[in-house]
């Protein structure tokens, strides 16, 4: 007597299997095929290859299992049952690698890859040698095979991997400090373990009891846990869920409309569906690419903002180091320059004996150069102090008229050397303000020096008077007016910035650093005063007006 079985169509369609198989297995195949497609669409790096390995192996496994249930050929049953034993470890190894990569945020090492290879080898050997499925059972008509060493080897590997996942989870949970990270690890581990358990339990129960129908319920749980695992990964690995949803929606819509083309017999309806399909394709594509671009741009901006923050911190640090260096270097330079300046002046004045006429001019040049250099160093020092916030003011009543006059007297030789008239006038005599003598003198020196530098012919006039500011408060107004190069209106605003010089300033004076006005402004503001520029334009002279609270 021979057993009577249905003849299967396309390997898997027959009345031999339980109807449940088609629901559990074909649904799972569709879910995993969908997930597999998504791995090729995703933006963010994640353990794609491990997931592909797991999903791909599981699809092969499910298909082989459906063949076993549906097909009547003994050859097919033996071959596909053997195939099950060969691909099953791959599902678990893929899931394990996926978990480990998720946990450790790095690819599996080469050594571990080869370890995996060595673990797989026996399963393949047992399968090829006929030790996984050791024979077909024809004592009943259930089309069962007798399982052997290869299948049990698979279960051992799977159990070890499951225990390893539990062990690694416990170790990581104990090490991890943040609650969010612990929840993330726990959920991903839970998803992976449930995936393992539902699959392993179904197979082990079937092997032990021989009840292959009930065990199929375990396989129904697999896609649910896989979906859970994917969701957790998506949620915590900052994939863009919006993209996932839009992808799903658009793809589902396209498939639905495409399938409607074949579901209708009415030509008019088919035409309408075709039009809808043609419209949905470009619109869906535009929607998908638009959202993707937007998400990419947002992520890019977030990334750049972080980089900018880091760069900004670095720049602040560099700026602080520069100020420190400037301060130290300036101090080191100031002492020798002061000595050069002082001794040159003493020699010119004859304190060390008569000076030949031929030596006077070079010595005066030395003295003047030392003065210019000392002034520049003073500016550098002030800048570094201003930027470090260490500039200290010693306020005391100061007669600004006398300070301005003193500066004029000191600078007169410089003006005369350029054949310029340097005049001082004070309408109100002594004009007392609360000021730091040294710093306010530096302000006037910088302004007068600046005026002399940028005036080729004519005069520089310094005047001091009592006045009222825009709000009607009394102020001491100091005006330094020259007949020099003048400044175009559009350049006036930037002249008080660091290292900024007027356009073409180099043609008139090559020694300017662009620091004198910046320092002057900072020092005046330190006195709660104001400084501004007025000019009628190029070639029409400039007025610097300082107002200090009287």
């Amino acid at each position: 007597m021979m057993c009577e079985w249905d003849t299967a169509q396309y390997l898997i369609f027959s009345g031999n299997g339980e109807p449940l198989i088609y629901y559990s297995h074909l649904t799972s195949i569709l879910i995993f095929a969908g997930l597999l497609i998504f791995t090729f669409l995703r933006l963010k790096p994640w353990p794609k290859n491990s997931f592909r390995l797991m999903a791909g192996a599981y699809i092969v496994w499910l298909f082989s299992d459906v063949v076993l249930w549906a097909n009547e050929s003994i050859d097919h049953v033996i071959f596909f049952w053997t195939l099950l034993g060969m691909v099953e470890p791959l599902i678990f190894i893929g899931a394990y690698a996926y978990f480990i990569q998720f946990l450790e945020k790095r690819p599996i090492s080469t050594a571990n890859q080869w370890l995996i290879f060595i673990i797989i080898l026996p399963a393949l050997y047992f399968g090829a040698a006929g030790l996984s499925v050791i024979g077909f059972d024809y004592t009943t008509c259930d089309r069962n095979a007798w399982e052997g060493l290869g299948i049990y080897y698979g279960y051992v590997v799977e159990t070890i991997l499951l225990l390893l996942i539990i062990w690694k989870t416990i170790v990581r949970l104990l090490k991890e400090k943040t609650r969010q990270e612990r929840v993330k690890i726990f959920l991903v581990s839970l998803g992976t373990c449930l995936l393992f358990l539902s699959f392993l339990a179904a197979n082990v129960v079937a092997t032990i009891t021989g009840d292959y129908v009930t065990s199929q319920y375990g396989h129904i749980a697999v896609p649910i846990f896989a979906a859970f695992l994917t969701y957790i990964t998506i949620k915590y690995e900052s994939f863009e869920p919006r993209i996932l949803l839009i992808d799903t929606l658009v793809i589902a819509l396209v498939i639905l409309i495409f399938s409607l083309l074949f579901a209708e017999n009415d030509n008019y309806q088919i035409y309408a569906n075709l039009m809808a399909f043609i419209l949905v394709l470009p619109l869906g594509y535009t929607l998908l690419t638009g959202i993707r671009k937007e998400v990419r741009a947002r992520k890019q901006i977030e990334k750049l903002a972080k980089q900018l923050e880091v760069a900004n911190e670095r720049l602040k640090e560099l700026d602080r180091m520069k100020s420190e260096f400037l301060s130290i270097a300036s101090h080191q330079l100031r002492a020798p320059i002061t000595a050069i300046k002082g001794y040159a002046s003493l020699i010119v004045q004859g304190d060390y004996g008569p000076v030949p006429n031929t030596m006077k001019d070079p010595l005066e040049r030395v003295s003047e150069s030392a003065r210019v250099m000392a002034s520049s160093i003073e500016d550098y020092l002030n800048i570094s102090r201003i930027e470090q916030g260490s500039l200290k003011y010693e306020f005391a009543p100061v007669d600004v008229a006398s300070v301005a006059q003193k500066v004029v007297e000191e600078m007169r030789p410089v003006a005369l050397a350029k054949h310029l008239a340097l005049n001082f006038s004070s309408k109100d005599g002594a004009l007392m303000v609360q000021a730091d003598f040294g710093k306010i003198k530096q302000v006037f020196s910088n302004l007068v020096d600046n005026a002399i530098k940028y005036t080729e012919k004519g005069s520089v006039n310094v005047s001091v008077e009592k006045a009222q500011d825009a709000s009607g408060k009394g102020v001491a107004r100091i005006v330094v007016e020259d007949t020099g190069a003048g400044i175009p209106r559009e350049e006036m605003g930037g002249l008080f910035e660091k290292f900024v010089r007027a356009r073409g300033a180099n043609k008139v004076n090559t020694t300017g650093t662009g620091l004198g006005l910046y320092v002057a402004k900072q020092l005046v503001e330190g006195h709660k005063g104001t400084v501004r520029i007025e000019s009628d334009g190029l070639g029409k002279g400039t007025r610097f007006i300082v107002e200090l609270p009287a």
Partner: protein
Amino acid sequence: MPSAGNKIFLVAVVATYVIAIALTYARVYVLHAYPIYYSEEDMPGIPKQLDTLIYWDKTP
């Protein structure tokens, strides 16, 4: 981009699987070299009708 080590690993795994599956295919479909357990008592003369090389009579 996968490294050279990854590529070798991938090729090794795929090649081993292809070889193992090909051997299984040959053993099952070409040689029919797998045992069939049957009961001579329940199904007398079955071996003559089955396409395989090995038979095991499991008659108790």
